[in-house]
């Protein structure tokens, strides 16, 4: 069997990739996808720890995180579409009406 710490390391890798992509990527949809990746990393951690503690509540948490992620996806993509309609661009650098 694979030790649990490997899963945790994998989840740390995913989370770090998410964080990096959040800062590097310039397209809003990709930035949004990086957030989804971070949430998935969290889920993997929860499942891993749930097995370690023999606690079902870890899986319950995963379930709730998924529901929240779905809700966030709906709202987020609606916002993205609204922004695209108003500005016709999805580049983060060009969405800067409100700088000093």
């Amino acid at each position, binding site marked *: *069997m*694979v*030790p*649990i*710490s490997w899963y*945790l*390391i*994998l989840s*740390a*890798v995913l*989370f*770090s*990739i998410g*964080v990096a*992509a*959040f*800062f*590097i*990527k*310039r*397209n809003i*949809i*990709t930035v949004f*996808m990086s957030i*989804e*990746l971070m949430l*998935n990393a969290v*889920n*993997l951690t929860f*499942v891993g720890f749930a*097995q*370690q503690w*023999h606690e*079902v*509540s870890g*899986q*319950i948490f*995963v*379930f*709730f995180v*998924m*529901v*929240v*992620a*779905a*809700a*966030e*996806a709906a*709202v987020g*993509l*609606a916002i*993205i*579409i*609204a922004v*695209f*309609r108003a500005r*016709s*661009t*999805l*580049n983060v650098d060009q969405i800067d009406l409100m700088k000093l």
Partner: protein
Amino acid sequence: MTLRRLVHCALALTVAFAGLAALYLNLGAEFAGLAQLLVYVGAIAILIVFAILLTRGDDTAESVFSPSGLAGAILAAAVFAVLAWAVETSGIVHPAAIPAAPPEPMRSIGLILMHRYILPLEVIALMLTAAMIGAVILALREKRPQPEQIQRSSAQ
């Protein structure tokens, strides 16, 4: 995440979701694995592809090796180093710790959901309602100006 084309990014993400689902199943978490398949691969990936479709024509050309890219990579490496160090030093290496799955995992999840976590379950329904209202409000209002705007944006 280094791919240039948006659609390729989305596809890669979907594959990652599916891979995670396989890992959950491997860990003995059938419920989470199946839910992952349904929610992420089934719903969220589709939503993302739809968003790309609705906003198409905006493939932002970008270089991965920009200064901000370097900063991001360093940051990610730092985050990863801290997390990996924490995991390694916390002594969570129990190769034998993975038990045979409890006899009826689905049943126990259902029971816990309806007992201990009944309130969060009710409350999350409220969240979904609010999110639904919001998504509708933000994306579907202003029916008349909408076609003009799309025309204008495609003309540009």
